């Protein structure tokens, strides 16, 4: 489990989980669950596009994630945000089915991208993942207070000179970055589980926002480690453990909250 | 009113309500004579909405009784909730909203029915809403939406009509129109109206009775009896001046001192142009 071959996986998983915990905290308090679920799924066809065009997979994923951000933002201007999110998601996935049908059918590849796979992280892939992760984390840390303030009250934020619309777009971009890098490991369908599960527990365990943020990062990393270890031992898909552990974290958080009050 | 032999349209006795540990209403009592127009006046947070929701049975009181002539809320009480945010995407015309007031609780699709159509049309005419009856409610102005909601509440001919801040966010002309409309309807149909507002002035010409709420406690009676410095000072627990200027009433705390709970004591202050 700790062979040099697996070492890269551990490093990458730690990086993406820490980022997911950081960004996920704001996903939970801003109520952005649907967008957090839709963005990685919209990015997923990018892998198929990359395979068809013969470009780097991460580049393809980032490109489609950007389309997802543009779509959600564009459709939101004339309609309900959740309808915009849903339609962007299905549009890009629809394109994805087309790309998949035209490329060499590789069911194993599709399955891995959707549900995650531990193995197969090369040393060369660590650098872009770490760079994108750092960008997402840095942006979150810089926008820490505006993100929190506009989550509490958009009017309040506006009064302080923070345009809620811009913060929304900035946060979509941050989510897209954080989720795209986690996608190859955890899988497009379950990235957001890593984001909202630990973060929802952290929010229920403490009332102090910055402590909650730290807890969210910690729990997310532990979740990812546990999921990898269990997946390695059982040979079952990592997504199963991420989804289950995320729900478990939420349940624990709710129970603690319930016991307090 | 106590000497009157007719049964009150609404009798509230020693009503107390606590929500998540906080006392919202504290031994509130008043009764409304049938056909009277009553203003429920108080600042934001004084418990007006909670009182109305208790009467409707949406909030369980911790003590006291509420008796309402006619029985169940859905039949006997018409209700206009506080500022409904009509979703601009909601595909309902003003006519459909009034129709839902008639039979929105029934299962199944409403079948074409001449009697139902006529009743809805008559109600729309009664609130003077025929002009915009076929527009989407989300596209109507605040005053127009309020009229549609009044029609929605009145179509089952309730004996008692509760309105929660129907005048908030309306311009002065719409306020006068809505108050005039409510007055006409009560006169014609003999409905008892209990209307909450933070400003009593638009209601002064039509109000038979006032229930004044502050800090969860209430005094009631005619405007002349209740809106007096001595009575309100006792209710608030500190000195209150009632100033009458050009036929308008201003309720002012002495010096605008800050109260113990942090709220400014000059509520409700009403400075508005003379109509």
């Amino acid at each position, binding site marked *: 489990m700790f062979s040099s071959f697996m070492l890269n996986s551990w490093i990458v998983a730690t990086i993406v989980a820490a980022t997911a915990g950081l960004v996920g905290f704001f996903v*939970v308090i801003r*109520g952005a*669950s*649907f967008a957090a*679920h839709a963005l990685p799924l919209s990015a997923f066809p990018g892998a198929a596009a990359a395979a068809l065009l013969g470009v780097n997979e991460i580049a393809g994923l980032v490109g489609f994630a950007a389309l997802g951000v543009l779509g959600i933002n564009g459709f939101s201007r*004339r309609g309900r945000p*959740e*309808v915009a999110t*849903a*339609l962007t*998601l*299905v*549009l890009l*996935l*629809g*394109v994805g*089915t*087309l790309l*998949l*049908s*035209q490329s060499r*059918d590789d*069911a194993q590849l*599709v*399955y891995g991208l959707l*549900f*995650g796979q531990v193995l197969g992280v090369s040393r060369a892939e660590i650098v872009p993942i770490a760079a994108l992760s750092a960008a997402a984390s840095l942006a979150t840390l810089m926008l820490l207070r505006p993100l929190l303030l506009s989550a509490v009250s958009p009017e309040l934020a506006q009064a302080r000179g923070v345009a809620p619309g811009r913060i929304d777009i900035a946060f979509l971009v941050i989510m897209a970055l954080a989720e795209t890098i986690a996608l190859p490991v955890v899988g497009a*369908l*379950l990235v957001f*589980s890593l984001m*909202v599960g630990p973060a*929802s527990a952290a929010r229920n365990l403490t009332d102090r926002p910055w402590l909650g943020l730290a807890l969210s990062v910690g729990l997310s990393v532990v979740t990812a480690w546990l999921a990898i270890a269990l997946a390695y031992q059982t040979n*079952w*898909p990592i*997504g*199963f453990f*991420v*989804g*289950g552990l995320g*729900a478990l974290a*939420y349940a624990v958080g709710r129970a603690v909250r319930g016991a307090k009050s | 009113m106590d000497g009157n032999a007719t049964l009150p349209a609404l009798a509230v006795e020693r009503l107390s309500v606590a929500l998540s540990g906080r006392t919202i209403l504290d031994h509130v009592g008043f009764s409304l004579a049938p056909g009277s127009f009553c203003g429920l006046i108080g600042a934001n947070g004084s418990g007006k909405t909670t009182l109305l929701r208790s009467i*409707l049975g*949406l909030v369980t009181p911790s003590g006291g009784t509420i008796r309402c002539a006619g029985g169940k809320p*859905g039949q006997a009480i018409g*209700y206009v*909730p506080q500022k*409904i945010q009509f*979703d601009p*995407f909601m*595909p*309902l*015309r003003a006519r459909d909203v009034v129709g839902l007031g008639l039979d*929105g*609780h029934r299962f*199944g*699709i*409403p079948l074409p029915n001449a009697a139902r159509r006529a009743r809805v049309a008559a109600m729309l005419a009664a609130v003077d809403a025929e002009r915009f009856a076929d*527009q*989407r409610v989300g596209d109507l102005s605040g005053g127009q939406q309020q009229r549609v909601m009044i029609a*929605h509440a009145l179509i089952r001919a309730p004996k008692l009509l509760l309105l929660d801040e129907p005048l908030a966010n309306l311009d002065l002309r719409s306020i006068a129109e809505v108050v005039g409309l409510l007055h006409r309807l009560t006169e014609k149909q003999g409905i008892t109206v209990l209307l909450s507002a933070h400003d009593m002035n638009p209601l002064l010409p039509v109000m038979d009775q006032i229930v004044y709420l502050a800090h969860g406690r209430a005094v009631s009676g005619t405007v002349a009896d209740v809106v007096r410095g001595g009575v309100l000072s006792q209710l608030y627990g500190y000195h209150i001046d009632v100033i009458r200027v050009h036929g308008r009433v201003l309720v002012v705390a002495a010096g605008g001192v800050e109260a113990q709970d942090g709220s400014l004591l000059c509520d409700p202050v009403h400075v508005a142009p003379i109509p």
Partner: protein
Amino acid sequence: MVLSDFLSVLAGFWQNGPVQVALAVGGGAALVSAVVGVFTVLRGQAFAGHALADVSSAGGSASLLLGLRPLVGFFAMAALAAGGMEALGARAVRERDLVTGIVLGAGLGLTALFLYFDMTSTATTGAAVSVMFGSMFALAPGTVTLALGVAALALAASAALYRPLLLIALDPDLATIRGVRVRAVGFAHVVVLAMAVSLSAMTIGAILSTALLIGPAACGLRLARRTGTAIAIAAGLGLLATWGGIFLAYDSFYWTPGHGWPVSFFVVAIIVGAYALTGLRGRAG
């Protein structure tokens, strides 16, 4: 000449067995999704609708393992998820979305596991693609009766809940004082929603069924002034997209020999295109 080509394609299209099954089941799924979708969008439950569809994929993949009818699997899992969301029930929108997300994550975890078993225990390598992205032309002819039965049931239930749902959408308090059991009606609607998404999950795939649920309904709500009209527009568009998609996918076997284009792609493209177009137009009757 082009016309005669078209006619000969059309003739083959009608006589094709899988096409006939797809037209029937897909049509039923599109109709139910459009009708249920109008209320789903009105109630702000687009995410819940999408989540139920996604989670239903766990049932779809389990049915391959257990040898059940796919529709039974899809629906059982969607109904279970609906119950889970209701049990964890939350009022505030943000909290409700979070609960939806947590249930969705757990459900998709199960999908991952069942698909893994599908792929390791049997030789169905295409399980992931067919469950998640649909298998319109691979529907068993025996499912037609069951699927249309479920569709009819869902439509009847939607009709029954029509007025209470609208009154609740107007204001839940108003509904409560009129004696509507707001929570019970809401749960009934979610169960109907589960029926709708399992039908469309079986046809255009679990993660794409959201297209049929949300897209036509959103168009109808944009264009119509009345609920009935919105539902009619949604139903028409849903049918057009599905049947049009089936025809184009059938025809596409001639465009790129060996690689037919997927039905789901065409369905989604037509729906999103229609949504973009309706954004440019005003409202009709």
